[in-house]
């Protein structure tokens, strides 16, 4: 494997807006090939990698979505582009961001902002809606028409950046850190015995419908599902009910969306092997692939492991690589200990 920092930079800077995940998939395919892990691309575009277990005792499916939030061109307004959002974009972050418009060729551009000289003070405090905002790629109306059309995808653009304390900032770390942790997991699994077959689904369109999780869990029919995603890390000025922090290991979710037997088992393994972990309360349906995996087929015992992340859904998300490594390590240990005893019977009763 490449060193993790280089690989995370590559994954972060690649564009993979929901339904145009190709560039990210290419990186994943390349890394899987290097790891000598066989993979297939399914009907909807998920990449499913498989590492057979020594006894074929069961099937565990891990899922990390590879798509990211982005924008889409709605129409050409003279020399600028109007757009709508793809996924949960915060309109507050848009003015002054850099983008790539995927027209006939990729076009670098910016989201325009009106200088303070032209706007009254009161208007400056109002968040501009996507109808009011626009993209400028520096072309004339005529050139624009030749290169861009309604429905073209637009990705946010941001350099990956190292901060202090081995923290890294960039776009789409939601959910490329999890993608990285699954690649790292395959590397770990080379050195550890596992009886179960390990499927890793790199899923598409999580930010929209969960299409990738629905289809991959239906196809694979796993006995156990593990969604790997990012979780809200505690930020400065954060409400006190959010307790997960960076540098404290993966967060294991508890709640109706997760299987209590599996959840307590992975917590026990984390304790036994002294892997730092955190618990996060998930009172409702998690907004992750776990949501769809759990209700696939006849129901699949599922857990959610989250990597702590700051400033989610902005181009300056922040993570720690250490948490990614801990996640891969905890997952490998859990997989090597997997047994049907963890979820058979009424674990909800205890």
């Amino acid at each position, binding site marked *: 494997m490449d060193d993790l920092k280089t690989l995370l930079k590559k994954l972060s800077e690649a564009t993979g807006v929901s339904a145009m995940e190709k560039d990210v998939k290419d990186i994943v395919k390349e890394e899987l090939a290097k790891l000598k892990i066989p993979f297939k691309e399914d009907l909807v575009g998920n990449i499913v990698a498989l590492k057979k277990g020594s006894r074929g005792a069961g099937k565990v499916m891990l899922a990390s979505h590879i798509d990211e939030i982005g924008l889409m061109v709605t129409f050409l307004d003279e020399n600028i582009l109007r757009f709508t959002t793809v996924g949960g974009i915060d309109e*507050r972050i848009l003015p002054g961001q850099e983008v790539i418009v995927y027209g006939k060729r990729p076009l*670098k551009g910016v989201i*325009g902002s009106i*200088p303070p000289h032209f*706007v009254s003070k009161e208007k400056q*405090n*109002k968040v501009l809606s996507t109808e009011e905002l626009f993209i400028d790629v520096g072309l004339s109306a005529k050139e624009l028409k030749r290169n861009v059309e309604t429905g073209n995808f637009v990705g946010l653009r941001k350099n990956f950046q190292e901060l202090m*304390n081995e923290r890294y*900032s960039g776009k789409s770390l939601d959910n490329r850190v999890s993608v990285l942790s699954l690649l790292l997991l395959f590397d770990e699994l080379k050195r550890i015995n596992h009886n179960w077959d390990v499927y890793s689904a790199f899923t598409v369109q999580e930010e929209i419908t969960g299409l990738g999780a629905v289809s991959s869990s239906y196809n694979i029919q796993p006995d156990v599902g593990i969604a790997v995603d990012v979780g*809200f890390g505690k930020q400065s000025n954060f409400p006190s009910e959010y307790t997960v922090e960076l540098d404290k290991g993966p967060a294991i979710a508890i709640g109706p969306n997760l299987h209590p037997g599996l959840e307590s088992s992975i917590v026990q393994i984390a304790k036994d092997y002294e892997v730092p972990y955190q618990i996060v309360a998930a009172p409702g349906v998690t907004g992750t692939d776990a949501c769809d995996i759990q209700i696939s087929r006849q129901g699949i015992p599922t857990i959610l492991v989250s990597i702590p992340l700051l400033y989610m859904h902005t181009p300056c998300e922040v993570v720690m690589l250490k948490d990614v490594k801990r996640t891969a390590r905890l997952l490998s240990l859990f997989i090597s200990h997997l047994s049907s005893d963890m979820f058979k019977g009424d674990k909800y009763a205890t």
Partner: protein
Amino acid sequence: MLLEKLSNLDGASGDEAEVRNFIKGKVKNYVTNIEVDPFGNLICFKKGRKKSPIIIIDAHMDEVGFMITGKRQDGTLTFSKVGGINTSVVIAKTLRIGRKKIRGVVGIKPVHLLEKEERKKVPTLKELYIDVGAKSDKELKDIEIGDFAYFDTDFERLSNNVIKGKAFDDRVGCSLLIDIARKEFNFPLYTVFSTQEEIGLRGARVIGNRINADYAIILEGTGAGDFPSRKENARVPFLGKGPTLTVMDRSMIADRELLEIIINIAKREKISYQLKQPGIGGTDAGRIQVSQRGVKCSVIAVPARYIHSPVSLMNTKDYRDTFKLVMAVLRHLGRGR
């Protein structure tokens, strides 16, 4: 064009040293005298064969930016604006801080966790903070209160003519002025790179007092008004339609005679020009004009979209045309009456 390098340099009002040192190196072999005044203005003098007219060409070195105002116990930084910036363009951007250019991000609460009202309001700068990854204020030894911070933007070419970068206001003026300082003139010419324009045209005030000039031409990067077709928005100047001349802004009314001369030269030289929408912004001209016995002032600007944000766009054709126009105007004024 030196604009690429100039745009990537950091120099907010009061922190112009990096820009000043770069410019010094580029002009020192072409001028008779070069000095830095007590205000930080870089004043270069080119002695001509003749004694008059004495002309100032001025561009300001400073850009809008930020200053670190405090270190909080949890390792985050509080900060303030230096010059006019809409808070909306600060959110979710990377900044570089101080001489060591330490990177930090302006993070906000994730959209998933917002109350309905919060979605509609731009947070105030007081609610925002910079996160450099430190876990406590003890780790912030390389950052001092008073350090300046800048948008972490790289200069880039977007298309044949359109370039992207920060601080085009007024590094485009600096770049033009360096090009001009390297030419020969037969009259006394002061090429002046000023400081602290963005916090109230302050460097220009002492320049006007120091130099007793007949004319002053201010080179600017001015806000283009060609936003999308929304009636309430300004329309001029446009990107790609040439140098932009000021009739009146919030700092002055340009000298009518000098403006006429410039317009006539533009027409003669077949350089397309445009008039800036009156009543917006202010420039060093507003200070130099009212110094000493009064100075005939005019502003010639290159339009740039989205100035005072992390990413402005400019047309390189406007740059070339502005250079051509300013050179023709200088030659004309140099001939005297």
